[in-house]
Each structure stands twice: as structure tokens, then as C-alpha cells.
């Protein structure tokens, strides 16, 4: 039997499911309509395991493991929802909201923001943590797009889509810790960078950090669904 046809059986939240070897826990859970929250994961891009929202409990492991990069093993017993996980996920969301300046009422992505809807689905009504109120820059030098670092959650989707799909690798990250910024080229103005203006980064951005100037004042839904299709066509 070749490794590709190797089938694993495991349980997720006490449901018995089957999976192909090499699949991630997240893939299998989503196939079976078991919800696991994610922010940095996006179907069609590589995974980095950075947002830590998809952490799950696996029987026999004291550590919590990120579902997006954990591959299935035979007989795994996975819990995707527990008091402990809910508590961590809420705290992580709170950290994100308090870290930069997420003011939904004035945000271009209002009602179309993954961070906002995640908070809503978790019933997050207020933040216990002190807001940091740190000021970050806005770069509107590009003719069509703007990056507002105040709304960036550093999920790195823009970096990955630019490098892996568009093949331009214009986006990257600079600095450390809370000073991290996504940058174009070597922190050139976006408008003066080697950007191909394809707009993929804007479509995959989960918040209003990257937006299309033309959509300011009107609803700005993002459409990252093109990615799996694009990948399918590329591999065909």
C-alpha cells in the first residue's frame, strides 16, 4: 500500500472520522463540519501556526497543538472544544483587540472582518486587558490600495499569498514583537515598491488592514475563495 492511499481513523470530539495520511487535523475537522476557529490559516496557502486559535487537545499530549499544522495519526483522540480551549481562544482574541487599534465603527471592513465575526461568534463583548493605544502608520502611497497597520493582526496571509501565489514576494515582515510590521520590499512605500498591483493580498487580508481605496464608504467584503480554485487550476 502506498503512503498516499494510507487511511487513518481517528476521533474528533468523540466522532469517528477517517482521513488520508498527511492531512492536517484542521482539514479533517472541516471536512466533517467540525468548526475550529482560525485566523492565520487560509485554504490555498501554506500554514504557519501563528494565531494559535486552532489549538486542540490531543489525548496523551500535555501540550495543546495547532490543528492547522498537526498531521493526523492513527487512533488520535482530538478535542476541539473545551473550557480550557475556549478560555485560551478568548484571551488570544482579547490580546489581538488590545494590541493595536481595532475600531470597528470606523473601519472599512466593518461587517466583513474575520476578527470581528470571530469575536461575535465567541460572544466576546468587552476586553479585560488594557488597550495599548500604540500608534502605527498608514501607507496610502499605492494608487489603488492602502495598508493601515493599526488594523493588522500579523497573520502573514499577505506575505504568503504574495510569495506563494503571485510569486512576487513583495510583502515581508520587519522588527520584532509588537513592533512587527508587514512591509513592501525593504520598507519602501507601497506605491514605490515592486508590487504587481494584483490585489491578492487585499482579498486575503482578514481585517481592514489592507483595503481597496475604491471601496471606502461602501461595503468591502474580501473574497479569498479564489485561492483553492487557482491552486487547482495550477496543478491541473
Amino acid at each position, binding site marked *: 500500500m502506498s503512503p498516499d492511499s494510507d487511511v487513518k481513523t481517528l476521533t474528533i470530539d468523540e466522532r469517528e472520522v477517517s482521513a488520508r495520511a498527511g492531512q492536517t487535523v484542521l482539514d479533517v475537522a472541516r471536512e466533517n463540519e467540525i468548526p475550529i476557529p482560525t485566523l492565520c490559516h487560509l485554504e490555498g496557502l501554506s500554514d*504557519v*501556526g*501563528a*494565531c*494559535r486559535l486552532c*489549538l486542540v487537545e490531543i489525548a496523551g499530549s500535555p*501540550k*495543546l497543538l*495547532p490543528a492547522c*499544522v498537526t498531521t493526523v495519526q492513527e487512533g488520535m483522540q482530538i478535542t476541539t472544544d473545551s473550557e*480550557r480551549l475556549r*478560555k*485560551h481562544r478568548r*484571551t*488570544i482574541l482579547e*490580546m*489581538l483587540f*488590545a*494590541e493595536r487599534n481595532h475600531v470597528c465603527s470606523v473601519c472599512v471592513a466593518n461587517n466583513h472582518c474575520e476578527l470581528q465575526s470571530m469575536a461575535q461568534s465567541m460572544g466576546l463583548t468587552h476586553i*479585560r*486587558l*488594557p488597550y*495599548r*493605544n500604540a500608534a502605527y502608520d498608514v501607507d496610502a502611497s499605492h494608487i489603488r490600495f492602502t495598508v493601515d497597520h493599526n488594523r493588522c*493582526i*500579523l497573520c*502573514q496571509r499577505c506575505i504568503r499569498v504574495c510569495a506563494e501565489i503571485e510569486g512576487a514576494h513583495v510583502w*515581508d*515582515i520587519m*522588527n*520584532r*514583537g*509588537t*513592533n*512587527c510590521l508587514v512591509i513592501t520590499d525593504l520598507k519602501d512605500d507601497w506605491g514605490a515598491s515592486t508590487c504587481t498591483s494584483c490585489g491578492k493580498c487585499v482579498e486575503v487580508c482578514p481585517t481592514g488592514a489592507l483595503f481597496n481605496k475604491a471601496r471606502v464608504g461602501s461595503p468591502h467584503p474580501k473574497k479569498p475563495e479564489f485561492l483553492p480554485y487557482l491552486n487547482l487550476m495550477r496543478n491541473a
Partner: protein
Amino acid sequence: MTIEELEQLAISVRRDNAKFDYQVNVCMDLACASQGAGAIKEALDQAVAASGKNVLVRRTGCMGPCSHGPLVRVDPEKTLYRKLKSEHAEKIVGALGSKPVSELQCDLSEHFEGQVRVVLENAGYIDPSKIEDYIGRDGYKALLSMLTEMTPNGVIHRITESGLRGRGGGGYPTGLKWGTVAKAAGDTKFVVCNGDEGDPGAFMDRSVMEGDPHRVIEGMAIAGYAIGASKGYIYVRAEYPLAVSRLTAALRDARRVGLLGMNICNTTFNFDVEIRLGAGAFVCGEETALLASIEGRRGNPRTRPPYPASSGLWGKPTLINNVETYANIAPIIRNGGKWFHNMGSERSKGTKVFALTGKIANTGLVEVPMGISLKDIIEKIGGGVPGGHKLKAVQTGGPSGGCIPANMLDVGVSYDALLKMGSIMGSGGMIVMDDTSCMVNVARFFMEFCMTESCGKCVPCRAGTAQMHTLLTRIAEGHGSMEDLELLEDLCATVKEASLCGLGQTAPNPVLSTLKYFRAEYEEHIVHKRCPAGICKVSHVEEVTA
């Protein structure tokens, strides 16, 4: 070079050294060098030339008790002189052959008696820039005898038998790691040495790399033979320029005499080592970040598995150990696994080098057998807390470790015992604190360190450490509430359990351990707006600037 040639060279080096009536060893490690050891050596050279005595003046690596430096030791009497200046040189040379200069002499016998030196066996005895000095003290004997007598499996067996555990902090069994990499599929494998020592108050690895660089290279070459690798990388932080230049010179010398390169000792074994410099990121001490940095990418950790043992540098199986771990290898091969296994405590074998810093008389490097009590390290070897102050706590393991209160210091040093007390062995930094240290301030200091050193990839570490730092600052400045304390504990739990790599997972340890043992101090800051140690600037009114 064959083993016979090596032995001949060793004999001739020893014979050359024996020609001298006296050997004056001048410690030229960073601490002593920064206080003028270079000028002292020059003055000694001149004084020796003028006196006409048959004396060898040698520069050496770190002798240990740095706070007494610049240090000079005169052999064979083993007279130790402390706090020297160049004008003392004539006196010292003049006293050779008669009574030592008593006013400059220092008696640190209690400091040295409790120590067992394996990693530091050559420190203070060899000139680190001379490969001959290392060979004269059985250097490279382990490598060459292993190449001619042992199989790779035999080497791994010996390391496993010794019970050596990783000295970088985690304490993973070294033999098991080597065995895993050896079994990993693939023709190309790599040996990596982690010399990115970044814990505040830790300088063990620097001293080893500066004072005995060949020991690290030999350990790596042995590892290369054991796992089937022909290429090694030493990752050294750029803040250690002396270590880099000593290692560079050592590699050049080892290649020159044929101890690195192709067909070492006329066998089919090829091995060479390249140095890679860090660029100032603490997180690059984390193994996956370190590998990314060697590859030339941003030093961000990634999730494991896959572990470097199966997929490391450029996706190839990679063995990654710390400097001190490699420094233990040659003696184990030379003396056998049992010899090493007989030292130390039940589950932690051998010795451990600690960097004693803070409120302690003998600041510097010590090497002690595992299992020795923390109290003995501090009171006997370290000389206790100076100035009539009272010992309060010991911080081990740097920003990933915790503070152990004075009443728990009877515990023997081992990986498990320290973990149980809420700290970790870590790479070996040991910061001693007395009653003038505020534990809230200590926790805040380490949190600030973790906050600024977090790579920013995962949310709990990036945003969580910043939040914890804000809360700790609030408490330290007297604006905290009991709810803040609760929130702090909540954050500790999430940052610890949800972070991606070791930096985040251990970042809450300084807070957790001080909360566990010194909660009253936190409450004093919050309830009575008072810092018991008088360190924090506590104010009753919060300044509003925004």
C-alpha cells in the same frame, strides 16, 4: 594526522612546557581583558626578560572567579594573584622561587574545592589560540582514537551510557538525540552547535568558546562521525567577537594540521565546520529559529514536529546541541560513559557550568557536579552574599526560569528538581538576589526582556508578553489592583500553554515563580503602595499624559 603523530606532538608540547621552571598564566578572558590583562601580560613578559629567569608567560581562558580579576596563576605552585595591575609584574616575577607576594595573593581554596572540572578542565591552563596547547592536554585524542577504534553506533552507545543530557536548558538525553539523527533517512546530514547564548547573566558558552575553542570543534567532529555528517555549523552571536575570532583561528589551525577536512586520520571520514553569526535576536537560540537564521532567512521559530532530527537545515536531518554539550563529548569518549555516569545525581549526570552573578562575592564561572545543593554553590563556592545582606532568592534559567526562595536552596541541582520548584536548569545562568532586590521588579525586568525579544510571530507571545509587562509596570508603580493580579495569572496560563515556541511557553515563569513564593510583595505594592525593597518608584497618584 595519525594518532601516533598526535601523541608525538602531545609529548613534545609537554616536554617544551616542562623546560620552564615556572608558568605564569594570565587570564585573558573578556572580564579580565577588559580590566587590563593585556597590559599585565606585556609587563610580565618584560619583567621575565629582564630577570633572566626561565619562565613561560601564557595567556589563558577564563579561570573562573571573574570578580577577582585580573587574575594570574603561577604554576607549579598554583599561587593565585588577584586584582593585578601592570606595575605589580616585577614584584611577581621577583617573587618566583621565593615566597609569593602575600598582599596580592588570594586564597580561593573553598571556591575551587567544591568544583569538579570537566568542561572547564583546560580553562586557565591553555592558550586558546594555540592548538598545540590543547593537544598537549589530550586534545583531539578522543576524535582520533574514536576514528580508528569505534563504530558510529559505538560512539552513540557510549554517549547514551554516559547519561549526558542537553546543556542548553531542555535537558533532552543527548545519546537519544544522536541516535535519532543517525537513524533518520538521508545521505546529507548536518551537525549544528548552538552558541547563541542570550540569557541575561549567562556567559558559560562564551567562556568555553573563548577559552577552549578546540573542545567544541572536537565534540562536533565526533558527533559528525556518529550521525554520518560531514558538515557542521557553529552559530555564534555577533556580540561575542572574541569567541568568533578564537573559533575562526581554531578552525584554521585544525584544518592546517589535518584534524578537519578530508580523510581525517587517513580514514574515509570528512568533516569541516563553518561559523555563522547571529544578528542580535535572542529567539535565534530556539533551534528552529536558529536553523532558519543559518539558512539566511528571518529567525522565526516554526512549529515542531517535524523536529530538526528528521527535517532541519535545508530539510535535512540535523543534530543540534549546545556548546556545553559538545564540550562534554571528548572527555566522555576518552574516559568512558561509566566515568561520566558516576558523577552527578540520579537522573542528571555529570557536571554543570553555572555563571554566578548578582549579589554574590565570587562572581564568575563555576563547574559543579549535578546534585550539589544550591546553598553549597552560593555559600561555599560563591562565597555568600557580600555586605552583610540577607540572601533572598536565586534566579536560574534566565528569562525562561524562575526565582527560587532562600528557604528552598537545600535542594540538589538537577533538571527535575529545578523544574519542580517552578524554575528550570536553563543554560546555567544563576542570579543571586538579596534583600535589596524587589521581586516584582525582577519579574518586570524579565518580562520586558521577553517582550522585546519575542519574534512577533504568534499572538500569545507577541501581544501577551506586552500585556503582562503593562500589568507588571502598573503594579510596580503602585497603580495595580487585585483584579490586575488575577488578570496577570490568566495571561500567564494562556501565554504558557498557547505560545508557539519555548520563548513564549516559558516567558511567564519568572512571574509565576515570584507569584508563588513572593505573593506578599505583589500585594504590598498593590494594597499598601509600598515597595518593601525600596526599588520600585511607587506613587499614589497615576500620572495621566494622554
